[in-house]
């Protein structure tokens, strides 16, 4: 099938392009061969399926890329972007390895394990472990007025005023967002993030 037959003006193309389906297929196959010779390290990294907490660690990082923190008028902001964990740590090494050498908004990401919510003042993102379920009300009260993105996988977290709650759908990690809580803390969540949420709550915490 001649390519020229498709052009009504009979004008010869100046581009030396493949003029048949076989040509296009040939180019695709050549690219696949090039791929076989290229660096396969990234491919190897993906052959083992990530664990639930490795996925959650990656999501914590990605939340940071779709949220805007208010510019502070008080003390100067920390030089690092702190992602903190309070309560029983289910991440283990996954959090450190996933977030090693990453940056958000030009700042190096630093992982901190903290004991109480009072230590979270310099945190941008705080993951509250399900072990803290009974202290949630107090934790959120301490954080009231600060611009910390609260994330957890404990049940009813977003209904109780937490900002982002991890939800497992089958073997896929999804999330629910309480937009009212986030906006109350002065955080701006990108619509690109909201469109992926399983549910977006617009009411502040209802009941405890």
């Amino acid at each position: 099938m001649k390519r020229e037959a498709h052009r009504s003006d009979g004008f010869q193309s100046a581009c030396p392009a493949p003029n048949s389906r076989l040509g296009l297929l040939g180019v695709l196959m050549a690219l696949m061969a090039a791929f076989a010779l290229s660096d396969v390290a990234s491919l190897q990294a993906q052959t083992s399926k990530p664990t639930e907490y490795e996925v959650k660690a990656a999501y914590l990082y990605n939340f940071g890329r779709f949220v805007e923190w208010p510019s502070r008028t008080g003390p100067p902001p920390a030089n690092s972007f702190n992602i903190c964990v309070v309560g029983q740590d289910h991440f283990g090494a996954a959090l450190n390895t996933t977030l090693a050498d990453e940056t958000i908004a030009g700042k190096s990401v630093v992982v901190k394990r903290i004991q109480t919510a009072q230590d979270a003042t310099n945190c941008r993102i705080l993951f509250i472990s399900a072990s803290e379920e009974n202290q949630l009300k107090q934790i959120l009260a301490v954080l009231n007025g600060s611009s910390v993105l609260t994330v957890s996988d404990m049940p009813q977290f977003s209904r109780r005023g937490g900002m982002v709650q991890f939800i497992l759908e089958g073997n896929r990690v999804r999330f629910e967002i309480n937009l009212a809580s986030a906006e109350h803390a002065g955080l701006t969540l990108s619509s690109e993030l909201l469109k992926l949420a399983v549910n977006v709550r617009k009411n502040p915490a209802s009941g405890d």
Partner: protein
Amino acid sequence: MQRVRDYSIPKKLTWMNMLVSGAALVLASTAFVTYGLMSHRETIIRNLTIQAQIVGSNSISALLFNDPVSAQKTLSALQASTNIVGAGIYTSGGQPFAAYERNGQHGSRPPIPPVRTQVHWWGDAGIVVVRPIVFQGGKVGTVFHPVRFTGNV
């Protein structure tokens, strides 16, 4: 018929003028058509590259949070154009992530290598735009965007 050689001088001059004017006209027309077609082609490539970029950037969060359904919704907006044969989103590792195919014409697409360059081929009266999806300085995926031209472009 009288041979040109036997024309009177005024008539010869007239013919020469017509010849030269005609040649100039043909040359100018050819130049205009060539330029028009080339810039038209460049416009098409540019428009399709922009389209691929829009599709790609709307799929960034879906890629980062592993939500192929959301990426599929983004791609299905391409239904509006009958020329678009399909589009595919690939992960940063080159694996298929989401695809849109008009009338299921193409079956399964092979995994494409994670090349950094944008490539476009003319093949079988169509064009394929392959573009990396970049977010905050890092590549998060690739858009594969074949378009078929139906009739005049």
